[in-house]
């Protein structure tokens, strides 16, 4: 047991309003502020982006309808290619009643080494009754020295449908670089009618005992959370849970899946691994398996993932 260390203080407000700038290297001291707000609505049989605002280097690269007009696939792009110290990214996505959207990113989110100020990303997702949001960003990679804060709120209406994931890799494993210094802060919150029903709060330092602890990461550099909810999933949760667990058993990745009853009515998947690829493959398989319940349709893999 670690002795009484310095108390972990509440998350500081790491907001900043830095200027915009040109292309960057992987070490940068000044921060950029970028935001993107999207609102999707159902118009007849189609889902349309009725609001699309961006500020700074964060935008939607394109909207595609590979599954027909009912479901919009949007690709979120952060042109600088990485998040540096002092950066602040705000992403807000709202789905109105009956809208369906799938959002992903063209590549991993790279959190660069931060000289002093940390970087922060805020994601706010809200899903109305009868709407379906699939939130499938590629993994976040923390470079050595990264000081990252991720805040995410997922506000679900009682009859909302959603599937999403969050994958974090500590260190540039492909380059043989471990994550030796820095911190990773997270505040992840799922709410139902404004009431929190699932919270994860983390303040992980690079030398944190949780990285080695058998209750923490047990030495794994990659960890992921996925969540699923929908009225169909709630009605058929035993079958959905059994199907998801059968998929997890077939993968050689430590994974646990649980169903949280009302007021949460939420399926939660946790996994850890030695590399992001294997964890991603597991979550993709689970997304495929659960999609008939969460999105009432067979999965269609975003083509950008093949590039």
């Amino acid at each position, binding site marked *: *047991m*670690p*002795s*009484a*260390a310095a*108390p*972990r*203080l*509440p*998350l500081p407000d790491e907001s900043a309003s830095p200027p915009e700038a040109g292309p960057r290297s992987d070490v940068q001291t000044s921060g950029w502020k970028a935001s993107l707000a999207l609102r999707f609505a159902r118009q007849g049989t189609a889902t349309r982006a009725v609001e699309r605002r961006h500020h700074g280097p964060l935008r939607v690269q394109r909207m595609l309808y590979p599954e027909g007009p009912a479901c919009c696939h949007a690709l979120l792009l952060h042109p600088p290619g990485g998040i540096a110290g002092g950066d602040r990214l705000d992403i807000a996505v709202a789905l109105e009643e009956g809208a369906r959207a799938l959002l992903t990113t063209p590549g991993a989110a790279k959190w660069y080494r931060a000289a002093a100020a940390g970087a922060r990303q805020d994601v706010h997702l809200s899903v109305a009754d009868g709407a379906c949001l699939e939130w499938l960003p590629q993994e976040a990679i923390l470079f050595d020295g990264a000081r990252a804060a991720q805040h995410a709120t997922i506000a679900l209406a009682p009859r909302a449908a959603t599937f999403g994931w969050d994958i974090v890799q500590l260190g540039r494993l492909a380059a043989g670089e471990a994550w030796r210094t820095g911190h990773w802060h*997270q505040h992840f*919150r799922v709410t139902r009618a404004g*009431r*929190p*029903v*699932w*919270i*994860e*709060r*983390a*303040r*992980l330092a690079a030398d944190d*005992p*949780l990285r080695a*602890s*058998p*209750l*923490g*990461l*047990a030495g*794994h550099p990659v*960890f992921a959370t996925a969540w699923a909810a929908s009225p169909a999933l709630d009605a058929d949760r035993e079958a959905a849970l059994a199907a998801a*667990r059968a998929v997890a058993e077939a993968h050689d990745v*430590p*994974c*646990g*899946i*649980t*169903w*949280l*009853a009302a007021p*949460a009515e939420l399926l*939660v998947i*946790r*996994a*850890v691994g030695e590399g992001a690829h294997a964890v991603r493959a597991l979550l993709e398989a689970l997304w495929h398996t659960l999609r008939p319940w969460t999105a009432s349709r067979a999965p269609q893999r975003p083509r950008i993932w093949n590039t």
Partner: protein
Amino acid sequence: MTTTTDFANLPALLQLASAALPVGAFSHSLGLEAALEAGAVRDAASAERWIADYLALVWAEGEAPLWRAQYAAWGALDAAALAGHNDELLALRETAELRLEGEQTGRSLAQWLKGLPDLPALTAAHRALLDALQPPAWASVHAVAARVLGLDERGGLHALAWSLAENLTAAAIKLVPLGQAAGQAILRRLGGRLPALIEHVLATPAVPASACNFAPMLGILSARHETQYTRLFRS
């Protein structure tokens, strides 16, 4: 109401910390049984590591600051704060079984508290606020119990941490299995670390933003326990 932990009030602390408290804690291992199944716990040393990490990295960083926030809210009879912190406590439990444990022991502790005689400090206002928490989280109820029993924060946290350490050690004795002497040795060492741990909790701001619950393997193992074939414990 006195709020010192002196000998005059020691029986109240011992009763609250006792393994005989009828809250069903003995039927929960808080992931320890699943850790054995997965091989993460195999023997006395790994069982002690698991319990020590649970206390220091999970409890002290997670529910303990919220217990303090609830202790303050009970002092102010602040209904909104009590409800908000109670929601946080429930939502921080990341699996069905960990939630079940927190809710079932919370309900049982509330029943126990409301049934105690000679407890004028538990007023009608406390009872009404307790009944308004649906369901009452373990730490929410434990905080009001400590307060109306006249324990200060340090005393209440000691009672809570000791009962956790003792319950998890008893689970390890059954599960690993361990001899009684080995179990007592673990408890002796865990107990020796509690004062420093509780000072750490008392130095942490008593607000929800302090409460961290990042423990992915605990969540994974707890979720896997739901379908574990052979099990003695409910969590």
